[in-house]
């Protein structure tokens, strides 16, 4: 169960424990938390919604892509769903490798891929309204109907 969604608060140590091993000298984690201010606007709370079975498949795919690029890396990802308050943890990514360079690179790869291919959406709730963030102008549209091959394989 290295790749999962959680309705409960994420315990960082539990995610890390999945990748610690005797031949790993480096573990990196990325912890995405709910930020209060975004472009001058104050967030009150967030709702994360997921297409759950596909989201888990896509997280597993990211793990497999990392294994292909960094064969010695082990990856674990837990993403929260439901209502989150400011400073709550939305996602934890843990990657272990023998050497530190790869642990940073592979971890970063994971978060970028999550933002491309994992069907999870967040709805921001502000004092004066709410909006699904995927519909905001700063997001990338996918005119072809699916992510570009280069997104997936490069």
């Amino acid at each position: 169960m290295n790749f999962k969604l959680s309705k409960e608060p994420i315990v960082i140590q539990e995610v890390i424990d999945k990748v610690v091993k005797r031949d790993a000298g480096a573990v990196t984690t990325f912890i995405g938390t709910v930020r209060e201010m975004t472009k001058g606007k104050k967030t009150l709370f967030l709702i994360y919604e997921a297409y759950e079975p596909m989201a888990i498949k896509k997280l597993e795919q990211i793990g497999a892509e990392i294994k292909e690029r960094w064969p010695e890396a082990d990856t674990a990802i837990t993403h929260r769903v439901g209502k989150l308050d400011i400073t709550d943890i939305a996602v934890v990514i843990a990657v272990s490798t023998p050497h530190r360079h790869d642990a940073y690179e592979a971890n970063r790869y994971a978060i970028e891929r999550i933002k491309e291919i994992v069907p999870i959406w967040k709805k921001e709730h502000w004092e004066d309204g709410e909006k699904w963030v995927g519909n905001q102008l700063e997001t990338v549209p996918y005119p072809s109907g699916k992510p570009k091959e280069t997104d997936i394989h490069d």
Partner: protein
Amino acid sequence: MIKVLLFAQLRDDLGKESISLEGNSWSVAELKKKMTADYQLASLETVMTAVNEEFADDDTILSDGDIVAFIPPVSGG
């Protein structure tokens, strides 16, 4: 029968989580066109499509029993 799953803004717009349609050998593009017309949806152009939990092109042909999901630009992480 094809089941169409809706998420995020689309789910809010239609007020439901899924829709079942009698369809036969439609492409994803045809399904999108029909949905846009039937439900007065805003454009589905920026929406990705998954068929049976895998991303699919607009020219993918749908079969009876397929589960289609419309995937607005994602915002997890």
